[in-house]
């Protein structure tokens, strides 16, 4: 039996092992990885800072693989065919694969090792950066390439004033030319980042506490920064190969042949550590192809790696940047619009017949359709092609054109999968061909190919309903449907899933009212709505009582404190001006709520796709600038719309004057007081993609304001997609804000009276669902950890103490699934 040993567990190693298993590899696989966790999606690393967990990013490990983590390999004995790790462990191999990736290059500037200096490569790096950002106000990224800008965006996301220092005269010098770089710089600066191009670093200086305090440029100018991130390129990790006498390139990289084999026939090298055909590839697509070639060779095949496309398309800080093919050529055609922030350039052969490459900044429309045409005859004039994919010309791709560069899938392969497997959606294409599963930038192309193959692209919510949420809403409304069973029997197939059931539950709740745990509806709710609480990572739940407008009496504060103390709950002030109590087991929820309801609290619906909070600032009652009673209005609105079920959560805020201390413009509907009344803003949110709310109507009386909000919310509930916040809904409304104004202010569809009546029904029918639950023994029966041992708490739930409060002890995931 072949003993395969892999050094390094990054994306390339993951793909190698997965391919081997898919091909039926019968030997043993042992992986020694230096990081403390199994391979994860490094391309998506930055999403770790915006809410993805390490587990979300982690790739699955096939059954049978032995993973030794935290094991840095320090030596290879090629004679004895063993590798040795830093902890002394020795592992024998028949076949060895080096997949050690690369390490960030840190230029030798004085001060580079001060506390507060980081690189940006691993989850541990990000944890360290996030921790350092906590007490910091500004940061600087050294390097203005692809990764540098991504790191800068991350620092900005952590709330730091962020600077980017780039040696070259323009940003992203490897992907775009000077013209593209200047447009890119405009975009980045407009986002509030300070860009210093053509600038070196003289030194990094510490403050009195010994940590980084500032960066000094060669001209003596200083940039204040408590966090410094180096992103000045990467170097292949070839030190192991070097030390064991394997040839490496002049500028690094383990030399391999076209089968990814090193000079030692028992040793392969793949991914960012390998020098293949004189090139080190720093993109995951080519690394995956190398992994597949090596896997084929290990299984006795004869696959070859013949180089790869280095095209890139990304959305960096909201700006599309793409480049493909050669970045120079005999002739070029350029389109530049500094006002609109768009730059596009195509390189063509000197007879203007062959496409050589291109650069796009601000609008990557042409990328998808043109990249596969590199090296081919131009299908239209270069000027026309500049507008391809943006509503201009439509370019037909030849079958052998590569559509997904990450996974090397051609248009022909996709069309064949569509035809032979009868695919009707992108999910199906992803599953069958793997196209679109890595960086996602080819997904728009996949949709186009589906449409062009005559497949009707489905707007279906899921496999059970061929309708969108808005269509289902109308079906339920017009036909007066009262249950999921009736709806699926008459208009769907199967028995539903986690996508359609909660969506239908929400529609039924919006239209019919009643308790969400009544009858069959209880089974439709996801766990949060089912237990009227938010599930936590260890299976406990959180409790959030409503605190309308953020106003609370000392008595009520004391009750919350007492309940938290008596049940030992972790207590935290939320971002929504209320208090969250964490760590309750299901069987504790009714007891906790009994205490809260008795003290006059009600559900805060923190668990529901429903109105969350209406935040307020202190307003004219106390604030010397306030012009209206913002607290009073916030409370009135929160009480009016509490319990309203909607396609996604709804948030609001009211500010007492234009200083806007309640942050109303980051809400789904936000109200700002004026001397004459209220300005209403709609379609804002924070979250993953922040958007400011836009002014819908100005200087409204309180009555008119409420009438328009009633209509706005009901129109949204009626027509939005599942899990679509108001921001995305308005962006997708044909006609946008103007159309919305016509419908809900000018009543162009004649539905305003109906929308208002629907809201009146909601307001009149409201009751507190937690009170109704604790008063109903039938509903209470579900609040147990074990039906056959109702008094027994779940033994897997355990806590430790941090800063005087509880914190979950996490259940370890076994890693070696051997």
């Amino acid at each position: 039996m072949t003993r395969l040993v892999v050094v390094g567990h990054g994306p390339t190693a993951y793909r190698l092992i997965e391919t081997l298993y898919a091909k039926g590899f019968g030997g043993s696989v042992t992986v020694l990885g230096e990081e403390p966790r199994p391979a994860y999606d490094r391309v998506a690393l930055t999403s770790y800072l915006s809410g993805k967990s390490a587990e979300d990013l982690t790739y699955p490990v096939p059954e049978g693989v032995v993973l030794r983590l935290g094991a840095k390999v320090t030596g290879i004995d090629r004679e004895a065919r063993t590798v040795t790790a830093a902890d002394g462990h020795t592992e024998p191999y028949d076949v060895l694969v080096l997949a050690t990736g690369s390490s960030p290059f840190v230029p030798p500037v004085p001060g580079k090792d001060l506390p507060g200096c980081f690189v940006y490569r691993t989850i541990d790096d990000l944890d360290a950066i996030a921790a350092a950002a906590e007490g910091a106000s500004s940061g600087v990224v050294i390097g203005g390439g692809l990764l540098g800008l991504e790191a800068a965006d991350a620092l900005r996301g952590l709330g730091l004033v962020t600077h980017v220092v780039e040696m070259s005269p323009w940003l992203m010098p490897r992907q775009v030319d000077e013209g593209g770089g200047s447009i890119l710089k405009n975009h980045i600066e407009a986002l509030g980042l300070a860009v210093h191009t053509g600038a070196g670093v003289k030194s990094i200086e510490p403050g009195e506490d010994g940590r980084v305090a500032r960066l000094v440029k060669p001209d003596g100018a200083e940039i204040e920064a408590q966090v410094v991130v180096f992103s000045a390129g990467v170097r292949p990790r070839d030190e192991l190969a070097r030390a064991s006498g394997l040839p490496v390139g002049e500028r690094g990289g383990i030399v391999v042949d076209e089968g990814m084999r090193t000079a030692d026939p028992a040793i392969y090298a793949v991914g960012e550590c390998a020098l293949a055909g004189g090139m080190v590839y720093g993109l995951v697509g080519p690394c995956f192809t190398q992994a597949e070639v090596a896997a084929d060779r290990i299984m006795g095949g004869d696959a070859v790696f013949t180089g790869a496309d280095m095209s890139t398309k990304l959305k960096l800080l909201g700006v599309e940047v793409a480049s493909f093919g050669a970045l120079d050529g005999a002739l070029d055609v350029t389109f530049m619009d500094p006002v609109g922030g768009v730059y596009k350039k195509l390189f063509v052969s000197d007879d203007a017949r062959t496409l050589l490459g291109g650069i796009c900044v601000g609008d990557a429309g042409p990328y998808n359709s043109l990249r596969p045409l590199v090296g081919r005859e131009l299908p239209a004039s270069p000027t026309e092609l500049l507008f391809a994919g943006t509503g201009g010309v439509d370019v037909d791709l030849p079958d052998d054109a590569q559509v997904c560069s990450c996974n090397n899938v051609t248009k022909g392969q996709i069309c064949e999968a569509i035809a032979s497997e009868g695919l009707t959606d992108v999910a199906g294409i992803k599953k069958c061909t793997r196209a679109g599963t890595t960086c996602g930038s080819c997904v728009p192309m996949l949709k186009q190919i589906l449409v062009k193959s005559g497949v009707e692209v489905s707007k279906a919510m899921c496999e059970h309903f061929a309708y969108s949420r808005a269509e289902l809403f109308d079906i339920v409304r017009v036909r007066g449907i009262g249950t999921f069973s009736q709806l699926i029997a008459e208009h769907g197939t199967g028995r539903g899933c986690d996508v359609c059931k909660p969506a239908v539950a929400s529609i039924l709740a919006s239209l019919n009212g009643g308790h969400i745990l009544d009858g069959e509806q209880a089974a439709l709710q996801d766990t949060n709505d089912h237990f009227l609480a938010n599930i936590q990572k260890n299976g406990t739940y959180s409790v959030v009582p409503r605190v309308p407008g953020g106003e609370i009496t000392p008595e009520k504060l004391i009750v919350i404190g007492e309940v938290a103390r008596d049940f030992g709950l972790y207590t935290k002030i939320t971002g929504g001006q209320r208090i969250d109590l964490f760590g309750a087991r299901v069987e504790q929820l009714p007891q906790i709520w009994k205490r809260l309801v008795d003290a006059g609290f009600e559900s805060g619906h923190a668990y529901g796709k429903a109105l969350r909070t209406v935040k307020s600032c202190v307003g004219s009652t106390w604030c010397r600038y306030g012009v209206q009673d913002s607290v009073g209005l916030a409370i009135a609105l929160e009480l009016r719309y509490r319990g309203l079920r909607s396609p996604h959560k709804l948030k609001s805020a009211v500010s007492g004057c234009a200083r806007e201390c309640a942050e109303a413009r980051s809400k789904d509907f936000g109200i700002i007081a004026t001397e004459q009344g209220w300005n209403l803003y709609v379609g804002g949110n924070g979250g993953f993609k922040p958007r400011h709310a836009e002014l819908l109507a100005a200087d409204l009386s309180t009555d008119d304001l409420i009438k328009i909000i009633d209509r706005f919310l009901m129109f949204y509930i009626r027509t939005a997609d599942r899990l679509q916040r108001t921001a995305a809904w308005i962006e997708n409304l044909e006609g946008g804000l103007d159309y919305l104004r016509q419908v809900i202010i000018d009543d162009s569809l004649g539905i305003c009276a109906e929308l208002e009546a629907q809201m009146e029904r909601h307001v009149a029918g409201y009751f507190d669902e937690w009170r109704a639950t604790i008063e109903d023994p039938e509903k209470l029966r579900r609040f147990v950890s074990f039906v056959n041992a109702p008094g027994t708490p779940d033994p897997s739930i355990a806590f430790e103490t941090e800063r005087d409060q509880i914190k979950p002890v996490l259940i370890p995931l076994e890693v070696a699934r051997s």
Partner: protein
Amino acid sequence: MSVELQASPVSTDRWHPVCAYSDLIPERGACVLVEGRQIAVFRGFDGALYALGNRDPFSGAYVLSRGIVGTRAGEPMVASPMHKQAFSLLTGECLDDPSVSVPTYRIRVTDGVVEVSIA
């Protein structure tokens, strides 16, 4: 005082009564504790019963009994309430990642009482 420890009988068929059939809500799960093991039991729309390990292998939390029950391509499944991966109620296999699965247990109804076997 001394306590006699009795070794649990090694039988292939040890059925444990866990709850009344009517305790289970159609298309919803509940968790039962059998000899220290957490088992998620489900009652399908058509009345069929299923039993799986309660532990969600992706998050490590014991929560599968609290997921939404439905079908995928006709196969009865439960979606983990943590991160939504679907598990077949028939085989315990994760339908989104066949390299992962959860244990399945035998389950039956005798005189209106649901019984689970962990043998």
